[in-house]
């Protein structure tokens, strides 16, 4: 197979690059001997007309025992110069120089290798920035690893549900357990800060006294809260503000300390300023008020109402206590509480969740999945590079033989090849870092807001760079290992007898087939994951949200009782609606306690006298103004919606479809009674049924009870001080933002409009995780497919090359071209088939990790697997087809003459 097309007059030096066979340092014995052998071989070629390989072999033979001679000469030389370390260092420098020169001499191969590795390293580094930012970066709290949330947990007939906790419960948890150093509460809310500087919405928290201490925060000015300020209701009319707010609103003026400011229309004294890098448990707070003020200024039914659960406390684990221990401890406490307070605490427990896990939610798992996927891609890139290098290794057999003849040990040759691998990897890493830079910038745009917690900033920093270095080293070794091992196994004696290339080339074919099968398997696994993710995303997009989000502009308001007491709230809402309705471009306006996908409603319990078998049902209660359903495009299925005239005395309710399906499946619900809050609570009569609108997510099965059902009441009957306003527009909703703010200011100048955004944003946000995962996995798998195809092509091409003699004879004997092609393609498919089987099994094992992200498609979906496997097979056939065609076009005579 060393084709006869080569120019026999070429010198050994040019042809074999023996000048590069540097074992020892330049200027050493090896270089001398090499020079001798080169010139001697050239002489033999000239004088005796020997071929290149033959001349070399003869030169080595005449030279004698190369290894011994070299050792002797070196020993003599060494007695002259005692600088051994230079020899050792020189060896490495030599290896690197040689590797670089080899790389430069094969620009095509080098380009392919560097591109492959660059893509692999770039992709994995990009994903690592996300991994690092979300999973490893320090949270903005002291010793955050020991911080946990204590989430109330309820066993309901529909399954377990996460709930808050009541103040009384939290006290019990803290007193009766032994696992916590400290427990604090915080309730995130939006405060309305007013005064001569203007009205402003500020995210903040009601917090208990120990909150700042528990999180390890010291104020930059003043102090935090004292125990007596968190005693009886309204005992602490004080406030701590964040440094950022201090700067923006008061220009860091020192005399803010001790001043009173208006928060939710209460005069609170500023007692301290929290450092700017402390975001509170909401991760965005700038204002803190003692929890004793919550009943006066915010929500909450009263500190002693055990069943009113709306707080999620944060706790610091005691030294040496793990999450599981704390969980078991609180479980026991919950059982005792259930015995003491059966009314409120039956089937209630507590879930201890590390703070980081709680902030990440399902994002953490998604990030791991993506990291795993990019790891598979990197592995595939390594396999592909190994493949390319193996292809070259068979080309380099004469060089390797020469080295072995010169006495280079197996380790020495291994080292040379590994160095080459690392040099390639470093070149690839250079490209990879450039790509990662672009990738991270792209990721910042691609990562949907809300997918990552706010402290997770994506940036290429030292840690990411360290990761890239680590990956580069690994990739270098991995991709060079197979070629190095194959080549170093060369048998010199046999090699000198037979044509050298046969030895190295033949052995590597099996390894290359295995590598290609592995590539096919990896690509198939990635493709299955990507296709599953895309189908799930598709299914999410196809979900009918139950409302029409197009051309709806939404905003939120909070109305303080001090400004609009009791019965002034409803008229205010009516005036606001009228003012907004009068704006040009506005079609209709309505208000509600929440809007689809922007919901902030609390769960309420309802009792149904007509269903005595059901004790009570938790529902999401929505308080809506007339025109709410038509404005949002929620279809009315039966009866009537909330109408004008449904005032503070109207005991009517509108049920959602799933509420009816679950509780009144076989009768007309219109006319049925429901009691809100208990059997002695407010009574309502159902007057209509509307389609299910998606308030909290797009994917939970409402009819099956995956989530609590929705129930609507007239806004004026059960008013709420913070509410959303929905404006259906005739024009682009975003363009109305300014005039909406002005209209609200005309009605009530002291109230700040917040969360002003088109409702379609929420819809997009809801599918953002699926979109993000689909795009990334799609890109990875497309890359994987290309790499695998290149791998198959390479192996089949070299197989055809290696068997050209056999194939040519077959053709000469009159074999049918179609059959020869079929044989080659069949060989390729056989290789791929092994990979396909392995890939399907791997995908079945791994795709379970995707389960929690999939909607509307199962992780074992047979159609997906079959389609992907079939697609891979088609790609295999195409990749094998090109070399197969070449096989049938061989000129028998020229091939046979070459041998």
């Amino acid at each position, binding site marked *: 197979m060393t084709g006869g097309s080569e120019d026999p007059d070429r010198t050994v*030096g040019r042809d074999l690059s023996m*000048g590069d066979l540097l074992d020892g340092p*330049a*200027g050493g*014995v090896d*270089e*001398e*001997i090499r*020079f*001798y052998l080169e*010139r*001697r071989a050239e*002489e033999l070629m000239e004088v005796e007309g020997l071929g290149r390989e033959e001349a070399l072999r003869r030169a080595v033979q*005449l*030279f*004698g*025992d*190369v290894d011994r*001679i*070299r050792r*002797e*000469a*070196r*020993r*003599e*030389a060494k*007695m*002259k110069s005692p600088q051994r370390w230079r020899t050792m260092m020189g060896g490495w420098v030599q290896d690197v120089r040689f590797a670089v020169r080899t790389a430069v001499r094969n620009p095509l191969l080098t380009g392919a290798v560097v591109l492959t590795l660059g893509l692999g390293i770039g992709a994995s580094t990009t994903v690592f920035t996300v991994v690092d930012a979300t999973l490893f970066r320090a949270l903005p709290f002291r010793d955050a690893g020991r911080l946990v949330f204590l989430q109330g947990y309820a066993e309901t007939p529909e399954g377990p549900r996460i709930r808050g906790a009541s103040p009384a419960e939290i006290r019990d948890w803290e007193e009766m357990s032994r696992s916590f150093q400290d427990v604090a509460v915080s309730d995130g809310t939006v405060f309305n800060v007013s005064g001569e500087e203007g009205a402003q919405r500020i995210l903040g928290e009601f917090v208990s006294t120990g909150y700042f201490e528990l999180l390890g925060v010291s104020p930059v000015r003043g102090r935090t809260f004292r125990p007596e300020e968190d005693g009886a209701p309204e005992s602490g009319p004080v406030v701590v503000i964040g440094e950022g707010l201090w700067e923006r609103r008061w220009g860091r003026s020192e005399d803010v300390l001790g001043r009173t400011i208006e928060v939710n229309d209460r005069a609170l004294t500023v007692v301290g300023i929290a450092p700017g890098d402390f975001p509170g448990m909401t991760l965005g707070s700038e204002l803190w008020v003692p929890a004793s003020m919550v009943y006066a200024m915010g929500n909450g039914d009263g500190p002693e109402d055990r069943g009113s659960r709306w707080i999620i406390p944060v706790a610091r684990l005691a030294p040496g206590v793990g999450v599981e221990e704390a969980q078991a401890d609180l479980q026991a406490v919950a059982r005792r509480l259930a015995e003491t307070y059966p009314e409120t605490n039956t089937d209630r427990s507590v879930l201890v969740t590390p703070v980081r896990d709680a902030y990440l939610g399902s994002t953490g798992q998604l990030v791991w999945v993506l990291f795993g996927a990019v790891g598979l891609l990197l592995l595939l890139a390594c396999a592909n590079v190994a493949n390319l290098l193996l292809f070259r290794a068979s080309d380099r057999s004469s060089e390797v033989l020469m080295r072995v003849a010169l006495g280079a040990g197996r380790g020495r040759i291994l080292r040379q090849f590994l160095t080459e691998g690392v040099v390639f990897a470093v070149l690839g890493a250079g490209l990879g870092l450039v790509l990662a830079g672009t990738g991270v910038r792209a990721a910042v745009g691609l990562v949907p807001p809300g997918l990552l917690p706010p402290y997770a900033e994506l940036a290429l920093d030292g840690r990411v760079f360290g990761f890239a270095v680590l990956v580069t080293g690994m990739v270098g070794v991995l991709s060079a290992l197979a070629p190095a091992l194959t080549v170093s196994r060369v048998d010199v004696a046999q090699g000198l007898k037979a044509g050298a290339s046969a030895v190295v080339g033949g052995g590597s074919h099996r390894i290359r087939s295995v590598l290609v099968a592995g590539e096919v398997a990896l690509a198939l696994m990635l493709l299955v994951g990507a296709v599953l993710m895309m189908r799930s995303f598709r299914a999410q997009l196809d979900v009918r949200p139950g409302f029409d989000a197009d051309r709806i502009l939404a905003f939120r308001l909070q109305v303080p009782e001090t400004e609009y007491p009791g019965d002034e709230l409803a008229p205010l809402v009516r005036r606001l609606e009228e003012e907004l309705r009068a704006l040009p471009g506005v079609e209709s306006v309505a208000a509600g306690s929440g809007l689809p996908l922007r919901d902030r409603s609390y769960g309420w319990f309802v009792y149904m006298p007509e269903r005595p078998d059901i004790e009570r049902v938790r529902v999401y209660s929505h308080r809506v103004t007339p025109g709410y359903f038509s404005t949002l495009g929620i279809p009315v299925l039966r009866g009537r919606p909330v109408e004008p005239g449904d005032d503070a005395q109207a005991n009517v309710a509108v049920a959602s479809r799933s509420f009816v399906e679950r509780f009144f499946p076989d009768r007309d619900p219109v006319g049925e009674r429901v009691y809100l809050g208990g059997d002695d609570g407010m009574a309502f009569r159902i007057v209509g049924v509307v389609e299910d609108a998606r308030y909290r997510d797009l994917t939970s099965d409402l009819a099956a009870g995956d989530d609590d059902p929705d129930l609507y009441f007239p806004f004026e009957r059960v008013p709420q001080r913070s509410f959303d306003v929905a404006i259906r527009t005739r024009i682009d909703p975003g363009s109305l933002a300014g005039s909406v703010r002005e209209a609200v200011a005309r009605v009530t100048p002291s109230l700040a409009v917040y969360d002003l955004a088109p409702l379609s944003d929420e819809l997009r946000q809801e599918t953002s995780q699926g979109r993000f995962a689909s795009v990334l996995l799609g890109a990875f798998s497309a890359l994987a497919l290309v790499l695998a195809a290149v791998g198959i092509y390479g192996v089949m091409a070299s197989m055809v090359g290696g068997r050209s003699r056999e194939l040519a004879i077959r053709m000469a004997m009159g074999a049918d071209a179609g059959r020869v092609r079929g044989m080659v393609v069949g060989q390729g498919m056989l290789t791929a088939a092994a990979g396909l089987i392995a890939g399907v099994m791997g995908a079945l094992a791994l795709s379970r990790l995707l389960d929690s992200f999939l909607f509307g498609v199962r992780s074992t979906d047979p159609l997906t697997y079959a389609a992907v496997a079939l697609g891979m097979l088609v790609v295999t056939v195409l990749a094998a087809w090109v070399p197969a065609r070449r096989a049938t076009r061989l000129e028998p005579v020229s091939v046979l003459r070459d041998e």
Partner: protein
Amino acid sequence: MSKGNFLSGTLDLLILRALDGCPLHGYAIGKWIRATSEGTLEVEEGALYPALHRLERKGLIDGSWGHTETNRRARFYEICAAGRAHLENETALWREYARGVAAVLSGEPGT
């Protein structure tokens, strides 16, 4: 006296002789020896190299890297004063020795 030692002594001498005219690199030295001895010295060609470095260590010759006429890097050896003296002594010794041996073998008294 083993053949190796005998030969290595001979080789040293041949190298010094080769270098007597001008500096040469190893391959040229080898070629000169092969040509002038007409193949009668059947040794490993490679044996040249330990000998060259031994001579250099002894200070008889001096090696340095240079470029050939085709601009390839090679190590050139040059005979030093000590080397030339050594060559003269050894050559004289050899001549005498060879004459002695020849005389003994021919059975005639020396001239």
